[in-house]
């Protein structure tokens, strides 16, 4: 390769590496701000700000969903397998909302440590299967659950 080209190749590599390092450092510094939601561990541990609008994510605990008979009010617990947070929400839940499903809720932590949600989104996991397979897995109690690291990065 002639020296001119060698020099230009070095410049191009320097540009790509330099930009990568700069962006990498910036993203590393912004790490917490890029996360879409706080995990139950962070909320219980006091890392999440109180009385301000935040997002919280976790898995809906089996058997914890309590629906109000008179209104659209619903209460449930969500977990990252380490800690649990109670969530209260009034409104229509997404179709995929069910126990054992990951969700991301937007709202604020009230004085009692309960998360008052104004929006609940279903967090779909990476597992796809036909209904028959799902039924078989359900019967065998082997339904895949969202992994812990999905909520704690």
């Amino acid at each position, binding site marked *: 390769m002639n020296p001119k080209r060698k020099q230009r190749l070095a410049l191009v590599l320097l540009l*790509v590496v330099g*930009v*990568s390092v700069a962006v990498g450092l910036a*993203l590393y510094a912004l790490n917490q701000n890029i996360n*879409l939601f706080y995990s139950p561990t962070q909320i219980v541990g006091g890392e999440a700000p109180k009385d301000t609008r935040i997002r919280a994510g976790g898995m809906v605990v089996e058997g914890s969903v309590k629906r109000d008979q008179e209104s659209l009010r619903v209460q449930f617990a969500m977990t990252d397998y380490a800690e649990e947070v109670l969530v209260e929400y009034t409104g229509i839940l997404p179709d*995929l909302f069910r126990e054992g499903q990951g969700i991301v809720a937007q709202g604020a932590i009230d004085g009692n440590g309960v998360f008052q949600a104004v929006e609940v989104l279903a967090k779909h*996991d*990476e597992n796809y299967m036909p209904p028959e397979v799902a039924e078989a897995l359900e019967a065998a109690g082997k339904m895949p659950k969202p992994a812990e690291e999905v909520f704690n*990065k």
Partner: protein
Amino acid sequence: MPEKKWMPRWFYQLASPKWCYQITGKLLPIFAWLALLCLGVGIVWALAFAPPDYQQGNSFRIMYLHVPAAILAQSCYMLMAIAGAIGLIWKMKVADMAAFAAAPIGASMAVLALATGAIWGKPTWGSWWVWDARLTSMLILLFLYLGVMALYAAMENPNTAAKAASILSLVGLVNIPIIKYSVEWWNTLHQPATFKLTEKPAMPVEMWLPLLIMVIGFYCFFAVSLMMRLRNEILRREKRASWVRELIVSQ
């Protein structure tokens, strides 16, 4: 001192617009038929014969467009950036033309991925759009494409335009691993990858086989549109070359 030959012969041959025009002319029908076959088989299989998902029912089928479009948007970006780098380093005109030809195709793939994702997100998540790391980095990819296209359009001289656009696409290259790993580095609403190199896919074979065919079909379709745009661009820029005149006269 004789220069060391460390690049294969075809690499230097590609540098000739005439040779490139001829070889793409031969390859074009092969890829066109492959694209037609794969997309036809894939779409019928995906929409009519693949089983529905246990949770999402039939709405999951949009992934047969969403996933290939997202893969292509990123592959096309890498191709554009690498072609741009070759153009910068070796001053190869054909590489510049390939980068120019790739930009709008990649941009349309990014639009398709974002649009199908939003259409799927509303019934599945309950929201059209969320500012999570995956969705945002994909939107940045689209803006990078638009920036590259704007640079090409803004400059009269194709060589200056290619230089500026190549530098922008190389700067944006860092976004590709960010898109890929966004779901692993940060808490996102978007699910992690269903297909991993080291693990069995979290999807049965009757669901992922049509997806694989669709991905191959999208790659073939991409090759077809890239070659068509590239051939047009070669003719446009080489319009003063004698072989182009002969070609036009002979038709």
